[in-house]
């Protein structure tokens, strides 16, 4: 049999729905294959683990050519909310949970979640701002130590 991957570390740097979901799906999928999975949230990716923002993750309707709508339409108030609503409904159909539930699921499955020290300092945050599934705040060096021996994926 071909060589198999044993471990992944996924860096989440974007706070949009389409920035966060692929990372969560890949982390959960790694655990489903019995692989070790570590998630490192940095910059706006931290929104995915912030108590006050985890339920407010939205699709980017501006500056997103994949939406195939003119930028000025994307900027109309409520459009992002609507697009998010529609996409969430589609995801629910194929059993992809909301971000909060997905984060819990990954943590329960043994996947580890970490916040980036530099971003935490920059935004003036602390562990209290994060959902309880977050393991700890890591420096870049600590992250590399943790990721050693596996693949690193940046989203």
């Amino acid at each position, binding site marked *: *049999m071909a060589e198999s991957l044993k471990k992944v570390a996924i860096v989440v740097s974007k706070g949009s729905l389409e920035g966060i979901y692929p990372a969560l*799906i890949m982390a*959960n*999928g790694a*655990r*489903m*294959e*019995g692989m070790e999975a570590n998630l490192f949230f940095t910059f706006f990716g931290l929104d995915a683990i912030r108590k006050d923002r985890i339920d407010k993750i939205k699709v980017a309707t501006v500056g997103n050519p994949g939406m195939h709508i003119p930028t000025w339409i994307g900027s109309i108030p409520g459009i992002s909310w609507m697009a998010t609503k529609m996409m969430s409904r589609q995801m629910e159909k*194929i*059993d*992809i*949970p909301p971000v909060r*539930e997905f984060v819990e*699921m990954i943590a*329960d*499955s*043994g996947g580890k979640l970490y916040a980036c020290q530099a971003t935490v300092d920059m935004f003036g945050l602390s562990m209290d701002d994060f959902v309880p599934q977050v393991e700890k705040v890591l420096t870049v060096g600590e992250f590399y130590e943790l990721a050693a021996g596996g693949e690193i994926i940046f989203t």
Partner: protein
Amino acid sequence: MTTVTLAGSPVEVDGEGFLAKPEQWTKQMGEEIARSSGIDQLTDRHWQVIEFMRKTYLDTGSAPSMRALGKTSGVSIKELYELFPKGPAKLAAKIGGIPKPRGCV
């Protein structure tokens, strides 16, 4: 597809050892697959998951997602991974004699 002998009977399996024909499966085969997958003793909790996977597959034509497994099998996600550390959905499917789950979640 290759043919291997499980619990004394020849069965067809794919490259990863998943049974090609669920109807060829027996509990004894399940126990044998479990042992070769690193689970020496299948407990009632293991069987609860395996039977749920198998029933869902036979009823609907596809294996349940990880989320569905955690919500409706009666075994939590945490316990699922304790029972099947190398991947609950994948291993329970293999032991239960159904094809490898195709879902991404």
